């Protein structure tokens, strides 16, 4: 029997865990307890910190003295390093450092179950898969818990694990796989922007009803270390009770705070190179760090026109080896505020480089750094989708984009009031131009730890204690069906999309079975192309749509595959099947093949590598 709800924020650059005693009768308010996570912070030193940097270092056998990497729960083990020291030392040995595993987890262009990280590692490094890396972070949190709470083992608690709202079915499935491999048998997935909103409501307590009223549409802007994630939550009234519905989620955008510090460092480095000063990798990292400090200082004090940047040399001569530079206010505004949060009209779309036709092997970073452009695209696309949809709690009524009434910020990037103000300014500019009313900010959010805290709160609220956000899946899913036509050399037959999972499926529900039949050959893998849409809200199961590959309403995701197991003498037999989708209690999508007129039931694998 679980005694605690534990919320884990498995972040791109930092992870954190918060816990909540389930038999509490009231929310924790501002005291949202964080788990202190012991980690190696230097050779021979273990310290507990609330944040566990999501970095994994794969050391060489001779690299460190014996007993230098022991942890309270593993005195002698030292084959892998997770956390602060992994990050710090890995900056000097990048080829052995696994970083941004979460971004790789959502990259369908690679086989996410195979050992591919570190991406540029030399031969002798025993690489790990993106799933393995996530498993190591989770296992570390689990051990930290078990070490501090030996009477209430982690595996027996209610664990809520957060994922970006933009994670597709395959990425969620892989997150679940990582959790299971880390020995967490029962977990629930929760979308990060929702977790941030739960944390805010818990902090506000009953006062929250004062800020949020029926008719409101809350925009959650979550800019983490590596990803930008948007969600819309509608507030409605149902028989006198406030009801919250997550109506839309944005697409997956690999763009975050880390890109911003890097952009500043590149800008400064250009000047240094022009002066004939060359930085090595370690110094460039130090410069990035110095830029972050300077940025924070200048954002905190608007009067500061410039901030000094000093990059120490690697050698023991500190004074002689130090490189001096400075960051000016103009540069900060140009690179960061205008570069990442440009003042653009709501009609401006992000630049994409999708049409190159080449499979990107490295991470598919966002081509356009303008967060506000991505936000504009999200709000306009969703307005078009909601305008024609039935039964939605948001009224569009001819507006050019969804008019949010309040915005909740999340992510360390927004510690800077200047950046929050810029987003508010841009949103208000759009709203005024479209005849809307000014937006307000839901203040008081805890930007770094909100996701873990909100997840723990959700674990408690699920037991009937508090308000829950409804919504179901934020996407509809389709299987690609090749249309029958005479073969034309060099031309792929056109593909149509068969809806198998409608938009908004709730946890623990099954979709209807589409009438279309497929023939699967026993023993041979059958692969289907797979599509998702975050805007087609009304397609019923069985709907057949033309040309998903050419439509911007669909996004092709990793294909799905199934191999019917060989049994006594049935090899090569053609089995007619129907497809059925279900959303598990955990929050993942499952697709099954049901044998037509027979007892056969087979699961389809979601995370197959996309073909090149």
């Amino acid at each position, binding site marked *: 029997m679980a005694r605690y709800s534990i919320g884990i924020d498995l972040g791109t650059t930092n992870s954190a865990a918060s816990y909540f005693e389930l038999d509490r009768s009231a929310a924790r308010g501002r005291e949202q307890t964080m788990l202190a996570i012991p980690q190696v912070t*230097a050779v021979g030193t273990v*310290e507990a910190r609330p944040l566990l940097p999501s970095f994994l270092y794969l050391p060489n056998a001779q690299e460190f*003295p014996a007993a230098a990497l022991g942890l309270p729960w593993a005195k002698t083990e030292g084959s892998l390093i997770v956390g602060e020291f992994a990050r710090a030392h890995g900056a000097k040995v990048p080829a052995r450092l696994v970083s941004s595993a979460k971004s790789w987890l959502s990259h369908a262009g690679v086989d996410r179950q195979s050992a591919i990280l570190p991406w540029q590692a030399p031969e002798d490094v025993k690489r790990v898969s993106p799933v393995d890396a996530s498993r190591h972070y989770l296992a570390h949190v689990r051990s930290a818990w078990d070490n501090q709470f030996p009477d209430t083992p982690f595996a027996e608690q209610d664990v809520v694990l957060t994922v970006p709202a933009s994670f597709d079915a395959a990425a969620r499935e892989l997150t679940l796989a990582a959790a299971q491999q880390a020995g967490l048998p029962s977990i629930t997935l929760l979308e990060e922007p929702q977790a941030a909103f739960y944390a805010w409501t818990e902090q506000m307590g009953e006062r929250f009803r004062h800020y949020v009223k029926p008719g409101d549409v809350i925009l959650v802007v979550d800019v983490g270390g590596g990803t930008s994630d948007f969600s819309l939550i509608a507030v409605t009234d149902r028989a006198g009770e406030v009801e919250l519905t997550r109506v839309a989620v944005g697409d997956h955008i690999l763009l975050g705070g880390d890109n911003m510090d890097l952009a500043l460092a590149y800008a400064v480095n250009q000047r240094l190179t022009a002066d004939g000063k060359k930085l090595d990798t370690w110094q460039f990292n130090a410069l990035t760090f110095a830029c972050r400090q300077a940025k924070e200082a200048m954002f905190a004090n608007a009067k500061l026109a410039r901030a*000094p940047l000093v990059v120490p040399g690697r050698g023991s001569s500190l*004074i002689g080896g130090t490189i001096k530079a400075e960051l000016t206010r103009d540069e900060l505004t140009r690179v960061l505020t205008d570069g990442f949060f440009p003042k653009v009209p709501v009609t401006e779309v992000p630049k994409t480089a999708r049409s190159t036709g080449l499979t990107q092997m490295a991470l598919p970073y966002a081509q356009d750094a303008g967060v506000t452009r991505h936000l504009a695209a999200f709000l306009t696309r969703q307005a078009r989708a909601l305008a024609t949809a039935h039964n939605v709690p948001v009224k569009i009524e001819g507006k050019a984009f969804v008019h949010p009434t309040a915005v909740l910020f999340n992510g360390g990037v927004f510690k800077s009031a200047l950046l929050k103000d810029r987003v508010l300014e841009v949103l208000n500019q759009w709203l005024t131009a479209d005849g809307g009313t000014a937006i307000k900010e839901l203040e008081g959010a805890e930007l770094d730890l909100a996701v873990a805290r909100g997840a723990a709160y959700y674990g408690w609220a699920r037991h009937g204690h508090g308000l829950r956000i409804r919504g179901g899946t934020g996407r509809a899913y389709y299987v690609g069906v090749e249309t029958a036509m005479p073969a034309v050399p060099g031309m792929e037959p056109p593909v149509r999309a068969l809806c198998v999972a409608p938009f908004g499926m709730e946890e623990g529900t099954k979709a209807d079975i589409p009438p279309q039949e497929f023939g699967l050959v026993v023993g041979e893998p059958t692969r289907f192309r797979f599509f998702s849409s975050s805007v087609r809200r009304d397609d019923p199961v069985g709907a057949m749509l033309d040309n998903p590959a050419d439509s911007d309403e669909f996004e092709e995701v990793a294909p799905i595959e199934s191999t019917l197991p060989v049994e006594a003498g049935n090899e090569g037999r053609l089995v007619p099947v129907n497809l059925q989708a279900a959303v598990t209690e955990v929050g993942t999508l499952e697709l099954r093949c049901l044998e037509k007129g027979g007892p056969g039931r087979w699961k389809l694998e979601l995370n197959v590598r996309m073909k090149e």
Partner: protein
Amino acid sequence: MQTTIPEPSFFARLKLAFRVLGDASLAREVALLAPATEGTPVEPPPEKTHASGLAVLALLQREGRLIDFLKEDVSGFSDSDIGAAARIVHAGSRKVVEQYITLEPVLKDAEGANVTVPAGFSAERIRLTGNVAGQPPFRGSLKHHGWVATSVRFPAVSEALDPRVIAPAEVEL
């Protein structure tokens, strides 16, 4: 539970004495067992006694490059170069100080203010200077408010490591 071994009889002791006389290696083991009655006990080497002090230096070097700074000859450098390096030392060492100890002034009054040092004051916390005469309470002007660590949280460093290594040499391959 401890078992009590009965004391050996006189003859048994005599027999043991002869065995010790005849067997050098047994004699060494007995000598190790007997409490050191003569001479001083073996002291741990100074680096073990002062391991925590060395660990703080290692911490200040790692975060703030303090040892590099102190060991460098500053005479040939301009003030602006020294200033730039001082920023690194300041930022890093400050981080260590803020993270691992809480420092507060001994006296909360502003420096320059007139203060009263009461009878029974702590001579450890307050140092009297100038015209020190007579009996407390004393009246005087606060020159330096002093510092006292109100909490100390330095991390434990593995005892298996040699505390003499303040910073390892770095060899790039």
